[in-house]
């Protein structure tokens, strides 16, 4: 992509907050199916992390690589940043094929790893070796920031090792269906199992002081390890004939990920954070739509990006019928988009373009186009990457009058009040934690066991109850301050805090009844994953999804080279008709 810049006029006008009038309304943006149609964008956490790694020239150095001829053993990488030193410590294990599982309830994995602050001495390594492979069953300390594990894509892994051992490079075609060697099955942070609390990470480790930055880096390092492990294995198997994998092929490998229901409660438990992420995304979009200069160069670049995105979607292999149909439809509509652009070279504004998209194309296509539009104007968007954090305080506004709160509920939670909770379907599901590793599961009301232990994810129903109690209270006792109502109705304290806090945000809560019998949890997963920056969503059911992280991103060897930051929507090298050069630096 060529380096465009906004006009001086638009740049001077592009200030946070200027775009409030053009932000899309919450009713549109927070609708769950739309959130479930989001695509990664410039401010997704992986993109931000890679920009940081490349601009600050992080040093990633292998300091220990004691793997045997089967690839099992220990590896340590030292990471140097402008702010500190970290260690990525990985243990590669043998796993009986019948015990390999991506489910959270598994207890053996092909590799386990942790990201620690500082250097690791022998004593520390011994402790990690005893605990990291146990994952949830182990105990580590506050020097660790992230804990994770991953399983091999056995077919890909063996194919790649065999090819390299035979002196051949793996072919892109054979890698197209599964673009990774390993897939992570859990990535833990934020104080779990004795690890550093988020407060420590945010205050002491500036490099990872953005949401999920450390977790994303862990995945990046697992990818790096996987690429070096296959080189090592090939060399050990055939020292005379083996070749190292070419960097251009390495870049095409991402790291796989399997995400299940565990991610869904996070979005309900952290509404302020989610509302902030959405607001930042929408602010970036609004800046582009409002201030992004439209000229033939930008239109041409958008055409290249649309073409690349079409190819990216074509290369997604999914057995999920619904997702496949969505991808096909989106590809078709992107073809129409290209024709429309061709016949509307005199596009007057991006507002005109997105309005046309909203009227004529599906929400997947719309949201994809929004992500692509943001690619055009890094100077209008990238400063927002520092604003993804929020101090999550949910406080009562105790002196507010109850009548005012009732009005606020009707204004900001009209979507919840519109749900008919007398219908059986509206309360047909419940969420609970299984004794198997606390795994969140979805049950059917009045059918499955555990309803009495349901997780408190019923935001919409709680809002309804709260609103009704407030109305009754006002009718019986007159108006009063919220603090007094909370004293009389202590069971409402949590939802009161939530309502008052979220009513003061631009986007508020996600508009969804998660208790509905037809709830589609995968929308929640995809929403969060899009902010992570993953691609190639491959739903395995309505409750879990496989996807790919960092595919197309620079590898460690690229650090220090010129970086175009154009690795979004990765495609097989040479397959993007609109592109003028390969992504990443030359080999």
């Amino acid at each position: 992509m060529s380096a465009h810049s906004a006009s001086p006029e638009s740049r001077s006008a592009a200030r946070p907050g200027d775009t409030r009038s053009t932000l899309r309304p919450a009713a549109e943006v927070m609708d769950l199916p739309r959130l479930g149609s989001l695509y990664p964008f410039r401010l997704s956490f992986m993109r931000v992390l890679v920009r940081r790694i490349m601009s600050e020239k992080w040093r990633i150095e292998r300091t220990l690589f004691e793997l045997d001829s089967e690839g099992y053993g220990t590896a340590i990488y030292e990471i140097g940043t402008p702010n500190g030193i970290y260690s990525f410590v990985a243990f590669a294990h043998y796993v009986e094929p019948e015990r390999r599982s991506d489910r959270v309830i598994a207890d053996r994995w092909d590799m386990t790893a942790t990201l620690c602050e500082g250097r690791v001495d022998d004593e520390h390594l011994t402790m990690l070796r005893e605990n990291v492979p146990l994952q949830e069953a182990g105990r580590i300390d506050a020097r660790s920031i992230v804990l994770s594990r991953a399983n091999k894509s056995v077919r890909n892994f063996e194919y790649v090792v065999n090819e390299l051992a035979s002196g051949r490079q793996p072919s892109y075609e054979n890698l197209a269906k599964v673009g990774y060697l390993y897939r992570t099955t859990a990535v833990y942070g934020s104080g779990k199992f004795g690890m550093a609390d988020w407060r420590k990470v945010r205050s002491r480790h500036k490099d990872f002081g953005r949401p999920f930055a450390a977790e994303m880096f862990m995945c990046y390092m697992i990818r790096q390890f996987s690429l070096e492990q296959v080189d090592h294995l090939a060399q050990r198997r055939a020292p005379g004939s083996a070749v190292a994998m070419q960097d251009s092929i390495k870049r095409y490998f991402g790291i796989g990920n399997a995400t299940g229901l565990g991610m869904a409660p996070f979005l309900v438990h952290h509404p302020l954070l989610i509302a902030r992420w959405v607001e930042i995304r929408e602010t970036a979009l609004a800046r582009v739509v409002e201030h992004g200069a439209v000229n033939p160069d930008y239109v041409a670049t958008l055409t290249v990006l649309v073409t690349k995105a079409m190819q990216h979607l074509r290369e997604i292999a999914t057995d999920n019928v619904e997702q496949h149909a969505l991808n096909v439809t989106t590809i078709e509509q992107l073809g129409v988009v290209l024709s429309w652009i061709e016949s509307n070279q005199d596009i007057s504004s991006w507002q005109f373009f997105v309005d046309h998209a909203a009227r004529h194309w599906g929400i997947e296509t719309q949201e994809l186009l929004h992500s692509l539009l943001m690619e055009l104007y890094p100077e209008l968007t990238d400063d927002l990457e520092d604003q993804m954090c929020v101090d999550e305080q949910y406080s009562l506004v105790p002196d507010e009058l109850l009548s005012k709160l009732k009005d606020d509920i009707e204004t900001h939670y009209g979507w919840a009040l519109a749900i008919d909770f007398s219908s059986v379907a509206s309360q047909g599901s419940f969420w609970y934690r299984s004794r198997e590793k606390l795994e969140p599961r979805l049950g059917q009301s009045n059918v499955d066991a555990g309803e009495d232990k349901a997780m408190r994810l019923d935001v919409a129903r709680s809002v309804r109850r709260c609103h009704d109690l407030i109305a009754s209270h006002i009718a019986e006792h007159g108006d009063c301050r919220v603090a007094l109502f909370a004293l009389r109705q202590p069971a409402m304290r949590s939802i009161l805090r939530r309502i008052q806090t979220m009513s003061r945000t631009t986007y508020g809560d996600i508009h969804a009844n998660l208790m509905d019998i037809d709830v589609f949890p995968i929308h929640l997963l995809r929403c969060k994953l899009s902010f992570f920056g993953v691609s190639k969503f491959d739903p395995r059911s309505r409750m879990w999804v496989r996807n790919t992280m960092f595919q197309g991103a620079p590898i460690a060897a690229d650090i220090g080279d010129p970086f175009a930051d154009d690795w979004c929507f990765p495609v097989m090298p040479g397959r993007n008709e609109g592109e003028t050069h390969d992504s990443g630096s030359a080999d």
Partner: protein
Amino acid sequence: MLKRSFEGLGFNQGDYEDTASAALWLECHGLGGLDTVRRAWPRLQKHTQLSVALVTESPGSAVLDAGNASALICGQIVADLVCSYAGPASTGRVELRSCLDCDAVLPAMVSCAGRGFNVLAQWNDQRFVCLAQIDAHAAYPLFERYPATGAVPETPSALVVAWRPGALAAQDLAETGIAAPGNAACQARITPDEFRDRYDGAVMHGLSIDTSTLAILTAAADNVLVEATERSRQGAGE
């Protein structure tokens, strides 16, 4: 973990959030939050439904009766109420009677300060009298402990006063009924800077928990878990 433990005891959502938060605050600031939980456990098991009675209410003040519940669970109620009573130029004042573990008033005071109130509090636990003060928007309070003198009250109680900065003249503070901190008889004193250091230490190095307390908390937390079955595994998308 703490939240899940109190949820497992049967607390309402707001109550388990507040109780866990108060216990964690005390632990992170070196005031034995986990020990308090351990000591209070029988009462926490008994008082799973928060029931704080409004004894009297007058403009700007109220008297509450906690019925011998722990301040871990009801401290935040006091914070919310006292802030609602404090007017632009007047104090809010809440007395909480029959309340145990009153050190848990401290995190409630921090929450008032976060909303822009100066707060002064005093409580007795029949052996000591404690004073605490925090300025509006400050993160850490001043805490002092004195030996109890005179008649020992029948049950512990706490008095919390809050006001907007500038809303109260210094001489009016005397009318709050709370002694000014800094008395020579003070047995123990923790300054805001010391609280900050304790908190930073906890964040830096983490917290430890003894195995018996962990076992109690884990057993309670287990109450929210549902036995796994083949059918339930389908509920994870298998």
